[in-house]
């Protein structure tokens, strides 16, 4: 089963490994794994989930290589990994385009590549693409904001946005999704102050935003980690006339939504659980098996996780999934 569709039936982020033919121990699979150095909770969760999932299987050996600080470092690290000839490689690239060549190299060397989250432009560079939906995330946030404002009868709302690192493509996609969704309601973003996925930068960006918009109706903050700082800034500025939507679905955010004592009313997921799924599917690929709920004999080529909206009403369901 795929975690993204039905997270409730799994223990936190591990897929169900029992009561399923695929769970039976098969031939040993060595999975090479590489993700960027984490200075962020989401990426840390990606690596942790991958490790936890691999530990579930007695027939999987996970070999993680640290990918360092940038694409060049990751290329170097993957070169050493390819030389070790694992059965499958799961990687979350710094940048899909910059690591496309490495993906091709691995595939040419006969190692199937599972690309996590950041797509390679060339289809020949991966066997499986499993990713979150950045555009869909923005869309979900926009829809929630639009619905809420419509319900409140606000006609000309002032909407703020706090993206993460603005030079990243994923940020661009999220923003595009938000704008598309808001356009449906005839709304648009009044001010946009990017942060850097860290709480202190979130605080700084939010402070600037709040200063620029003395009155606001809604705010979308792309990332729950930086959201800690955003919420702090809101409190420090003594503001509360608006509601806020988060992004990614961290534990703190889900708790805050449940408690309902801050402006944070919802968050749209971009779950690191995709790493767990990636390991499971990599194992299946390594063993030549398919996904048991699908008729096809092999694992499909692309899987995109849906972005869900967590609100006070369904928060309990997602509590376990927060990272």
């Amino acid at each position, binding site marked *: 089963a795929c975690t993204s569709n039905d997270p409730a039936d799994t223990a936190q982020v591990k897929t169900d490994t029992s009561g399923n033919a695929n769970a039976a121990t098969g031939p040993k699979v060595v999975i090479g794994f590489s993700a960027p150095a984490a200075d962020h909770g989401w990426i840390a969760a990606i690596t942790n989930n991958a490790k936890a999932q691999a530990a579930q299987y007695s027939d999987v050996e996970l070999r993680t290589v640290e990918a360092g600080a940038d694409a060049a470092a990751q290329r170097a690290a993957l070169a050493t990994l390819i030389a070790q000839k694992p059965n499958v490689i799961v990687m979350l690239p710094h940048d899909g385009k910059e690591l496309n060549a490495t993906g091709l190299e691995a595939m040419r060397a006969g190692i199937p590549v599972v690309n996590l989250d950041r797509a390679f432009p060339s289809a020949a560079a991966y066997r499986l693409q499993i990713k979150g939906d950045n555009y869909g995330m923005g869309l979900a946030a926009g829809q929630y904001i639009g619905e809420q404002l419509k319900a409140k009868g606000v006609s000309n709302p002032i909407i703020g946005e706090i993206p993460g690192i603005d030079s990243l493509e994923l940020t661009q996609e999220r923003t595009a999704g938000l704008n598309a969704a808001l356009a449906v309601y005839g709304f648009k973003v009044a*001010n946009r102050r990017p942060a850097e996925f*860290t709480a202190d930068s979130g605080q700084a960006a939010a402070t600037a935003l709040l200063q620029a918009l003395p009155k606001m109706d809604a705010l979308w903050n792309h990332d729950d980690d930086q959201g800690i700082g955003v919420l702090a800034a809101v409190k420090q500025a003594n503001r509360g006339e608006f509601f806020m939507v988060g992004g990614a679905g961290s534990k703190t955010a889900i708790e805050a939504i449940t408690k309902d004592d801050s402006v944070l009313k919802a968050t749209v997921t971009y779950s690191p659980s995709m790493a767990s799924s990636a390991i499971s599917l990599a194992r299946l690929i390594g063993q030549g098996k398919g996904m048991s709920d699908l008729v096809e004999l092999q694992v499909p080529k692309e899987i995109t996780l849906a972005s869900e909206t967590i609100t006070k009403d369904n928060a309990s369901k997602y509590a376990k999934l927060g990272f």
Partner: protein
Amino acid sequence: MTARTALPRRTDNDQVLRNLGLVGVLAALVVIGIVTRPELYSDPAWVRNNILTILQQASAIGVVTVGMTFVIIGGGIDLSVGAIIALAGVWSTTLATQAYGAAGMIFTALVVGLAVGLVNGVLIAYGKLVSFIATLAMLVSARGLAAQISGKQTQVSTNDTINSIASSRLIGIPVLVWILAAVVVAGWVLLNRTTFGRRTVAVGGNPEAARLAGIDVKRHTMLLFVLSGLCCGIAAIMLTSQATSAQAAMANLYELDAIAAAIIGGTLLSGGRGTIVGALFGVLVFSTITNLFAINNLATEVQNMVKGGIIVAAVLLQQFRYRSLTNLLRRRNDPDIS
């Protein structure tokens, strides 16, 4: 010849003029703000609040810049300030530390700052490492250690006292701004009115001359890095309070901001000259630019392009004012000579 005693102290004049130049730059930024967003500036409450916000956002980096200014005047450079803040912040927000309450957290942050500064100082003064390299190495190591300690997670501060520092006010002025003011005043006194400050200028201006005048150059160099570390410890508390959390990537690139602010404020990168007030103005210029961009909702890439231009313009403007005004003043004060 006796008329000369009446001459102003030239160097001080220069400094005042440079600072005047920066005040001019600040004024220009404000004027741009008024012109572009008149509706905001027409509300006195908003303006008052905006000034306080700018000051508040400048507070942590301002504290760091004071320490950095000392280090640069003393002939060094400290690339590790951001990393020290991250390490101090992370260390003081571990669950174990938070158990000791606000005092424990503050104590931890200050001690971590001091200790890292001490390591920097010892490596540079006694290990004879170039400060650029030693503090670059520290930057990498301290962020690594911070990541290790925090498990790469954002550590939330659950301590209300700490968290409330950033939202509290004293006589209508945010506590963070008071802290900045205190550090700036202390830094100014230390630099201009104490033997420590005098030594700093001597050590940075001509270390050999300082040594031959009996100053313990090594010890002093070490102390400068300790001072910078201490400022980082203070800034760590301030930032943690603002973000109600700390993480290994916090205070990213603060080193560049602090150095740039110090230099724009008139501190000589090669040491031996600099002013605390100038450094403060440098910080305020940056923080006002950010504010200006925010209220005008400039896109990041446009922001960046414009920011580079503003920095260059600010320095050029300042130089220009400085030169012509200096000449004016000199002429006016020296009529007896020609």
